[in-house]
């Protein structure tokens, strides 16, 4: 549905120094897909979204929606934002305070030029979309009388009332409190599924990204560093940045002993000892390797009080629990290895291991992932 190629937009300060932007962004979004742009502040995700929307004009590259060229740096085509068949939900919702709920949602139909909507049709469409969002009963109220969550749904209704080809969402959940956010997340997923509208979602919250998306593009400093389905991003990070950004992780460095083919596993001599790691891609011997293991995959077992022997089993190290944090659904442990490195492990809180205890930590080989660029 959407093809973005070689998108470049560079911002400059008043003194003509480069001050961020995006460099060479390229991705595709299929029809009906929920595609997320994920990254920390300033990574360029909002810029990319606004370029697709037409609110910013890129310097170079191309944007094609359903076969129609919206932007092409080479030929100079730039379709203005009001002529693109795109609906957008803004971070601040941008609900117009001087209009009623109904009028806010009806606005896109009223100003539409390509298609003229009759009064009856406007009423029908608006009521339908308001009904879908669960705010139909407030339709005659002033928009300012809605709560935060309702305003957000109104913004969504407004974006969808025209049944656009593409829906853009700019961090729409960031202003909601935790409980509402979770509820809205579920709602959003459901609505998007029902409407089947191609969606691009921008967020810095990787929990949202993981739960909502069909595919995720992780951005850093203006470039896409990895694109893939959530589980791939999570389990098989292809860079340190992605590994660290998505979820919590334990990260270690070492050197590969022998060469390894794609999909194979091999021993990496690391700072915490030799560890068997899984390799997604081929690597030659002697290479410097960084590998990661997620805290929830770390297996922790009590060591005997006087046990000084080396731990048995592959990928095992001995350590001392330095802290335990209770998070409600899990407990997070920080374990000192040889007094230097810390390993983060997550376990069910019922496990009664406390700070100061000796433990053996094991990284299951198939969950110890070597980062292959």
């Amino acid at each position, binding site marked *: 549905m959407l093809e973005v190629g070689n998108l470049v937009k560079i911002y400059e300060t008043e003194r003509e120094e480069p001050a961020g932007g995006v460099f060479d962004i390229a991705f595709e979004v299929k029809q009906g897909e929920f595609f997320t742009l994920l990254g920390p502040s300033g990574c360029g995700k909002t810029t990319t979204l606004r370029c697709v929307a037409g609110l910013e004009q890129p310097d170079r590259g191309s944007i094609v929606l359903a076969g129609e060229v919206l932007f092409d740096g080479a030929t100079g085509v730039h379709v203005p934002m009001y002529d693109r068949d795109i609906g957008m939900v803004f971070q601040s919702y941008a609900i*117009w305070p001087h209009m009623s709920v109904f009028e806010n949602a009806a606005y896109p139909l009223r100003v539409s030029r390509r298609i003229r909507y009759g009064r009856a049709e406007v009423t029908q469409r608006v009521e339908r979309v308001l009904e879908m969002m669960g705010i139909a009963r407030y339709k005659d109220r002033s928009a300012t009388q809605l709560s935060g969550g309702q305003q957000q749904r109104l913004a969504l209704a407004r974006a969808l009332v025209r049944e656009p080809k593409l829906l853009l969402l700019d961090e729409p959940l960031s202003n909601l409190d935790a409980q509402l956010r979770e509820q809205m997340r579920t*709602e959003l997923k459901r609505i998007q599924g029902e409407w089947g509208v191609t969606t691009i979602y921008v967020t810095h919250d990787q929990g949202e990204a993981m739960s909502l998306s069909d595919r995720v593009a992780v951005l850093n400093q203006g470039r896409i560093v990895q694109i893939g389905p959530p589980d791939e991003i999570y389990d098989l990070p292809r860079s340190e940045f992605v590994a660290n950004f998505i979820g919590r992780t334990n990260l270690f460095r070492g050197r590969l002993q022998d060469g390894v083919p794609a999909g194979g596993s091999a021993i990496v001599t690391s700072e915490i000892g030799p560890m068997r790691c899984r390799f997604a891609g081929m690597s030659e011997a002697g290479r410097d390797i960084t590998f990661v293991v997620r805290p929830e995959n770390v297996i922790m077992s009590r060591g005997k009080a006087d046990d000084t022997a080396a731990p048995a089993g592959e990928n095992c190290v001995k350590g001392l629990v330095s802290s335990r944090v209770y998070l409600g659904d899990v407990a997070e442990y920080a374990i000192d290895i040889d007094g230097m490195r810390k390993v983060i492990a997550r376990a069910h809180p019922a496990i009664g291991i406390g700070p100061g205890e000796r433990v053996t930590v094991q990284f299951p080989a198939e969950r110890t992932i070597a980062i292959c660029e």
Partner: protein
Amino acid sequence: MATELDVTDAAEMARQSAVRAKPRKLQFSPLVLLLCVILAILIIPPTFFLVDVSFHTTRPDGSMGDFTLGYYKALFTGRFFLPALINTAIYAVGSAVVALALGVTQAVLVERTNTPGRQYVVLGSIIALGIPNILHVVAWLLILGRSGPVNAALQHAFGSAVGINVYSMWGMIVIEGVNFVPLTFLLMSSVLRATDASFEEASMMSGARPLTTFRSITLRMGLPGILALLLLVFIRAFESFEVPALVGLAGNINVLTTNVYQSSRGSVTPSYGDAGAYSICLLIIIVALLYLYGRLSRNAHKFQTITGKGYRPRVINLGGMKWGASVALLVMFMLVTGLPLLILVFTSLQPFYDGVTPDAFGRFSFDNYREVLGPGSFRDAIANTLILGAATATLVVPFTALCAWLAARRRPGAWLLDQLASLPLVFPAIVMSVAFLYVFVNLPVPLYGTLLSVIIASTVRYMPYGMRYAYAGVLQIHNELEDASMSAGARRSSTFLRIVMPLLATPMISSWLLIFLLAVQTVSLPLMLVGPGTEIVAVSLFDLWQNGQVTELASMGIAWVCLMTVVSTTFYYVTRRYQLTI
């Protein structure tokens, strides 16, 4: 529909409505009370004088005579009343329309488009504001008068029968309207600049073109600011005197103010009763209008746009049309600033003025400047005048910011602040100076005749302008930002100083400059209040107006404009340096 969401919604809405309900008793917070008292001290005595003088005859020695309703009767029953009323209405509406049309267009082009050259409009407006009011009118009369270049060109092209008569209603409307454009532009700019871009972006993403967006979204959301502007312009036209006197009278067109003026000159001793009666009537009207304005912007919290969630005013790319827009800006610049300046420069270099003729160019000399800039009252007056302007602006701006904030946040009793601070709008210049004279000359404190007394009177006079600027500015700051401050532990005073004032910085700076420029060029106010030995440029200007030739007047005006431009541009660039925009 998911019932979970509904439950959460209901809870949130209940919370919001609880916050919004406020007690409707008549109470005053202590700070509001203090400010009301200060304002009352400043504004009640002159008002009292106006009321007093309108109900009593004036004896030859200036004291009040017997009670009389004669002035009010004369106001409403004289045979000149009805035509004057109609004329005033036409004049007020006409000049308001001109001022708004040009000012709003300029503001939109400057703030919301990529028209080339738009960065100079602000400078142009500031320079225009530096031209003393009398000179503005004189300049236009020089241009459009019977012997001026416009008529000369028309006659050249179409024969001597063709010509425009500027001493007519349209002449009055155009000159007053154009005169007011810098003010409307600056106020409107302020409003536009503070609007959250995402409202307009949302509109355009919904498929609305820029023009539709402007009409349906920008204008509607800027309504409080626009209403305030309308109020100012309309009232100003009702109490305006220079244009109707210089332009209208010569064409035998009477408005209410010139009517009053002519009646008041009918006796030997200047009788202020007529002017007083008129002012009181205007006062009643403005109180009513302010009440209306208050009701209309009561729901203004809906229009709060500075939410702290990041706002960047959106710039519309006009494409090829931007050159057309550029030309439009140039034309407006010429109308507002360029043409008056040109004709004044031209006139100032002449020994006398008789039109723009080839001969005239041969007569150029700097004699007038030598006269004016040599040792004399002008030179001595500059320092005092700058002090007057700076002091007035520095007093008005923070004071009105505080009052506007209290009024906009609906602190108990603060509606009174708004009313009080806006009252001086109706004091016509003819009476204001006398009113203050009476107050100061009777004070046991030796303020009479000092520059300080002029500063105080000036502060009162320009309070309404500061108030409107500040009010529009405060309205656009979301309550949330202040709530956040107070929940972090700051008291109201800290919140005001650390949160509200910095956010108000932009409108406050514009306000400061505006009031400075207005205060330094008021002629009528300082005239009576200033004491011997205290030189003010306005008095020198008036001296030349009475006793000197228009050529000398023009040269003093140009010298003054140059000085004002230097001050303004310095101000402008200093604020740019610190990244505050005007």
